[in-house]
């Protein structure tokens, strides 16, 4: 084949062909260059006078005017992020012959710390010699006064006014609004240079980051006249910038504050959502930090303190913290049982205190020694009867179970308007195959039924799921920003937030059953884990507690230590709730990282959030307090002290060895 092809080739002919082509190519190139010369003749000879004149008169330069960043308000117009005038010291490197000596000298006039100098030197390397570089941000009045007197000693340095971001509520909104930070070299590669000309800050986290595009605005420019040294003489023409859009959060600062206070500094998170539209009413992660520290560059000392603090204040627990959900998944599972036709409300299960898989020696426990007896769905939710849900999970099977739970966004993103949401883990055959390269065991399905076995959710996911449940299954994605506004005097434009699909609930009667079960958790009397939480509240509350173990249990023995501090070190406490039960307007999820029991420790936090919400309802809220239906209810003060049911303990596989996940409960 090869020889045939060779024989076809005609070296002499090819050489001649190439010679012709090379000459033709060169001819074309010369023509092209002549065309280019033609254009230069046109510019340099024919239009020379015109351009020479323009060059002489070329004293006008456009200078970008950065736009004001959009403000951020809460739902009632309380200012949460604002721009305040400040002054900074800037240096034009070109005009400073000896930078080291200059910094030493100016340091004796305006105190500079090492952070200022490091940041300045870094930016110095990245910018052009004629561009001014900020040396110190947020000068104090003293700094300005001292510099003014000594100004003559420092050619090239100047005090320049600018707008800086301020967060009046400090730590309260750090995990929601986030903060802005100085634009660095990495950002510059990615940003539109025209849009960000003259802008020094960009959203780094939270709303500031996810709404950067809306908040930023469009720069304007002014034509300035410069002299022969390139110095500005006067401004001739001004095209003002268009400021960024103002944002209105759906959060109510009063609920937010009450939520944060309710934690009393104990690490945890809470999210409250309006089930009617997905609007987030409160979102806190405790502890928090002061976002103002980050705006003009955080000092090394402050940053180290934040990153090394034991309870990680920078960690957004509401958005990124993942915890086993424990018993809080039971109402969702029960709803799945009804919707998928696996259970009818009246179907009963006998709880004996121990549940064994057929043909297996291992067994799983109920919370209570001896079990809860015969329970139907409502009672199983009220008493958090493990056996009922072990069996339900088995009957659904892991595939249907995780398929159903996935519709509540477990194991996925809720779609909130913030970056960096964790997906948590929704146990499934596929997930386990991908992560452990192992098949799924039926025992794991049993544990999945009580929110254990790999299962991990974020407080946001659970709040979202609770809101979807409370809202009769309408899947509204959680939203923090409810409206935007072009300027202070213009009307707010609401941001639409359509549900992501049709309702998850096909039969309204299914919802009624779950609603009844969750109300029984609060008002069900003896054995109800949320007992007393509805006292004195004008609306009916529906809720569910959850207590998940932080560590895997090694022994089969029931824990006899009832000391709260001891248990708090072992458990994570959850509480989910919504109200008014008949037509829910707020759904909350609370997690306390170190809480002994869901109902006793996380429950009161949820109640305080609902109280704060109630206070914001004004005249719409009924004054009268309806009496609870069942029995004598202790006064609210008694709640936290009321003894828990005996043996109200996490379930444990009766013969250990099953994966790391462990028991659950009330």
């Amino acid at each position, binding site marked *: 084949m090869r020889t045939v092809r060779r024989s076809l080739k005609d070296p002499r002919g090819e*050489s001649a062909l190439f010679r012709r082509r090379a000459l033709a190519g060169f001819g074309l190139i010369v023509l092209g260059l002549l065309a*280019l010369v033609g254009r*230069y003749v046109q*510019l*340099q000879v024919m239009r020379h006078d*015109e*351009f020479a004149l323009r060059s002489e008169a*070329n004293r006008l330069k*456009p200078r970008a005017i950065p736009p004001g960043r959009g403000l951020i308000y809460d739902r009632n117009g309380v200012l949460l992020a604002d721009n305040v005038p400040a002054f900074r010291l800037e240096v034009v490197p070109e005009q400073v012959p000896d930078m080291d000596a200059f910094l030493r000298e100016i340091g004796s006039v305006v105190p500079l710390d090492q952070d200022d100098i490091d940041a300045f030197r870094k930016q110095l390397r990245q910018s052009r010699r004629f561009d001014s570089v900020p040396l110190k941000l947020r000068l104090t009045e003293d700094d300005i006064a001292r510099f003014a007197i000594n100004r003559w000693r420092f050619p090239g340095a100047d005090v320049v006014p600018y707008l800086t971001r301020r967060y009046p509520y400090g730590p309260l909104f750090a995990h929601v609004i986030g903060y802005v930070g100085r634009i660095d070299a990495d950002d510059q590669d990615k940003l539109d240079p025209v849009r960000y000309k003259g802008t020094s800050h960009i959203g780094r986290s939270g709303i500031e980051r996810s709404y950067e595009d809306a908040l930023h605005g469009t720069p304007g420019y002014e034509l300035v006249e410069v002299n022969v040294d390139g110095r500005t003489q006067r401004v001739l023409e001004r095209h003002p910038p268009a400021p960024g859009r103002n944002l209105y959060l759906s959060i109510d600062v009063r609920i937010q504050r009450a939520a944060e206070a309710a934690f009393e500094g104990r690490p945890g998170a809470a999210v409250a959502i309006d089930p009617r539209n997905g609007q987030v009413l409160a979102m806190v992660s405790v502890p928090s930090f002061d976002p103002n520290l980050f705006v003009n560059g955080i000092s090394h000392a402050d940053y180290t303190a934040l990153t090394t603090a034991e309870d990680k204040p920078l960690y957004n627990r509401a958005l990124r913290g993942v915890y086993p959900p424990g018993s809080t998944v039971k109402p969702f599972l029960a709803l799945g049982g009804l919707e998928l036709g696996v259970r009818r409300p009246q179907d009963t299960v006998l709880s004996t205190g121990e549940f064994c898989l057929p043909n297996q020696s291992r067994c799983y426990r109920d919370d209570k020694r001896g079990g809860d007896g015969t329970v139907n769905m409502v009672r199983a939710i009220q008493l958090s009867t493990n056996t009922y849900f072990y069996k339900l999970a088995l009957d659904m099977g892991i595939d249907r179970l995780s398929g159903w739970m996935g519709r509540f966004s477990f194991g996925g993103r809720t779609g909130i308007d913030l970056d960096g949401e964790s997906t948590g883990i929704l146990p499934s055959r596929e997930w386990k195959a991908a992560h452990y390269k192992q098949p799924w065991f039926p025992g794991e399905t049993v544990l999945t039924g009580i929110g254990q076995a790999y299962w991990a959710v974020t407080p946001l996911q659970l709040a979202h799921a609770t809101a979807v449940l409370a809202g009769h299954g309408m899947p509204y994605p959680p939203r923090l920003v409810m409206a935007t506004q072009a300027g202070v005097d213009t009307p707010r434009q609401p941001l639409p937030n359509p549900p992501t699909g049709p309702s998850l609930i096909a039969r309204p009667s299914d919802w009624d059953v779950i609603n009844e079960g969750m109300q029984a958790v609060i008002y069900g009397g003896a054995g109800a884990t949320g007992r007393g939480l509805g006292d004195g509240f004008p609306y009916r509350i529906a809720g569910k507690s959850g207590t998940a173990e932080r560590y895997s249990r090694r022994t089969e023995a029931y824990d006899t230590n009832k000391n709260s501090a001891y248990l708090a070190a072992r458990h994570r406490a959850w509480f989910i709730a919504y109200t008014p039960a008949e037509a829910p307007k707020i759904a909350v999820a609370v997690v306390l990282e170190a809480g002994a029991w869901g109902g006793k420790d996380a429950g009161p936090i949820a109640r305080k959030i609902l109280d704060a919400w109630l206070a914001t309802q004004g005249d719409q809220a009924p004054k009268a307090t309806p009496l609870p239906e069942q029995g004598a209810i202790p006064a609210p003060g008694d709640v936290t002290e009321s003894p828990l049911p005996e043996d109200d303990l996490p379930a444990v596989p009766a013969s250990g060895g099953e994966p790391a996940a462990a028991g659950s409960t009330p």
Partner: protein
Amino acid sequence: MIDTLVETLHVRLRRLLRRLLTRPRIDLPLAAGLFLLACAGLVTLYSAGDADLGLVGGQAARFAMGAALLLLVSRIPPAVLRSWTPWLYLGSTFLLVVVAVLGEGRGAYRWLDLGVMRFQPSELLKLTMPMMVAWYLHPRQLPPGWKDIAVVGLLIAVPAALIAKQPDLGTALLVAAAGGFALFLAGMAWWRIGLLLGAVAAVVPVAWHFLHQYQRDRVLTLLNPESDPLGNGWHIIQSQIAVGSGGVFGKGWQHSTQSRLEFLPEHTTDFIFAVFSEEFGLVGVCALLALYAFIIGRCLWIAMEARDTYSRLLAGAIGMSFFVYVFVNGGMVAGMLPVVGVPMPLVSYGGTSAVSLLTGFGVLMSIHAHRKMHD
């Protein structure tokens, strides 16, 4: 003892010198042309960069590195280069894919970080592309038919599309042109060229929809520079003022007011030719363009002298793509073509392009050294 050592050294040196002069591995006229060009570049850079010797020194160091690579590559016989070609092409295209994957969702992304240095894989294609086309056409019957044209088209299109997607339209254009020239030099029939160009012209309105907004803006700004006073429109206006005000004889070295007063952005890189035009006028422009023409002509001469098809096509394509740099950059500076990132070869400040250009000339030197001998 020492005497003999000095003697042997002396003899060896003389032998080397004689060999270099009688049968030099490098083509002296081409080397002289490149040297002159590099000097012109440094002189202009000194002025455009506000007499910053550090800038000029850095660029000179890159030229030195480029020259070393040129000498190194000139020692590799074209036959060896040919045997490496498919691997070099595949390797560089693979790196483009790596960049595309790493750069997912990161805006303009062209660099590959090797820890010690960063480089743009697209720069490699400027050389491996014409090599590959020449390699493919080498054993085939020329002029090429539709089948071969289609294959070459594909060889060009894949990397060019990857580069255009980065997005780096300028480099994509240079790479595609280098491949296209090889095809042209292989003797692709004129009517076929006409047909293909016609088809391309017909596709332009469609391609418009696939351009990035900023790329469209660049073309639109060309038509109405006043519409974009902070961005490209400003470049175009100020660059034309620089060129036009230079006149026939120019304002003189270091007398460019446009760059000195910071009216002209990027005056050491993509727009350095505007400073050159302002300072040296039409006379300077003509002289520099003549120098470029000489270098391109010399490349084509070396190509004609080459021993085989591969060498001929490769040498010719490298020479002709040099023209694309000059034409696109010169046109852009004069407000005739849109603003794309194509440097004025060996004059614009910037390391990668200088080094890759000189490496390409190393290939030419090698081809020259292995030319067919006249009998």
